[in-house]
């Protein structure tokens, strides 16, 4: 087999870029993919060393980013089923949201869940730092309306005329509910992926 130095450089550059695009894969898996694509290119271009033939072969495979992207969707979902990190899970759900309506719904519910859970934990932290200014405030306004709100101000003073309903209970409730909400949201995401996402390897019956 004769491959000119120039052609070899083109192939190597393509494979190096593909390898870079597959950086989130396990080393072994990424190397396996790259070696298989290398074998494909060499088989397709064997006997023909023309730069046109090599360019044609590489074009048929798509750009390294496109090719890696086709592998990545599957890999993301496989990782989502193994992971214990909400960030990895959310990343996979975002990818799912770009693919289907179910994905969009699951992603939005998860974003709301994580945001509420995270906010509760933040309020606990704020309560510990600014105990007087953080609380679930109940206020009877001069115009006769009534309002209820969870807030924290860094000024260190409670909202005027407001009464804190929870006091230090906020810490206890926030510590119980915040992490619980985060865990439940995470489980909801994993469960949804297992339940609703199927690799489209064959048409659904």
């Amino acid at each position, binding site marked *: 087999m004769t491959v000119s130095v120039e052609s070899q450089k083109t192939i190597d550059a393509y494979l190096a870029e593909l390898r870079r695009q597959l950086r989130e894969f396990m080393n072994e898996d990424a190397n396996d*993919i790259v070696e298989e694509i290398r*074998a494909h290119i060499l088989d397709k271009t064997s006997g023909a060393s023309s730069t046109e033939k090599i360019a044609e072969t590489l074009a048929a495979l798509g750009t390294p980013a496109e090719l890696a992207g086709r592998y990545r969707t599957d890999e993301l979902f496989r990782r989502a089923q193994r992971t214990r990190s909400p960030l990895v899970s959310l990343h996979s759900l975002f990818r799912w949201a770009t693919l289907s309506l179910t994905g969009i719904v699951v992603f939005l519910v998860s974003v709301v869940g994580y945001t509420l859970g995270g906010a509760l934990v933040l309020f606990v932290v704020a309560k510990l730092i600014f105990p007087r200014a953080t609380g679930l405030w109940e206020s009877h306004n001069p115009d006769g309306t009534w309002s209820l709100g969870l807030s924290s101000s860094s000024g260190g003073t409670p909202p005027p005329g407001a009464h804190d309903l929870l006091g230090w209970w906020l810490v206890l409730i926030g510590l119980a509910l915040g992490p619980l909400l985060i865990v439940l949201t995470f489980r909801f995401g994993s469960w949804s992926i297992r339940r609703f996402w199927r690799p489209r390897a064959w048409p659904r019956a």
Partner: protein
Amino acid sequence: MEDSRPSPAPDSAEKWEIQLRKGSLELAILASLWEGSLYGLEILRHLESSSDLVVVEGTIYPLLSRLRALGLVDSEWVESDSGHPRKYYRLTAAGRRRALEMARVWEQFSGRMASLLEPLKKGSPPKKEPPLSLKEKS
């Protein structure tokens, strides 16, 4: 007044055909491996020569990787005379069962579709429908 019904997009038949081909690709790959193990490029050539499935080269390898993750095919690297190893795929027991199951569904479906499409072969023009106002009165 102008007819406001949407007319079918000129490329909709083409899109449908693409979806149909995509949907049958997995069965075609499993069927290609029925007789024995093949490497990626051999599968591509087999599909092109024995069916009119023209497969975009960049899609077959991720698809094979997915079939492997699903446990339907297995793979191993084999040294070759060409100077570089090649990754051969073969059906697993689950892959064989799946291929048979898909082939059965395919046969059944295509058989029924064929009888449904029988009238279209006659090529006779459709009967004129009565105007809507007459149908409503009757």
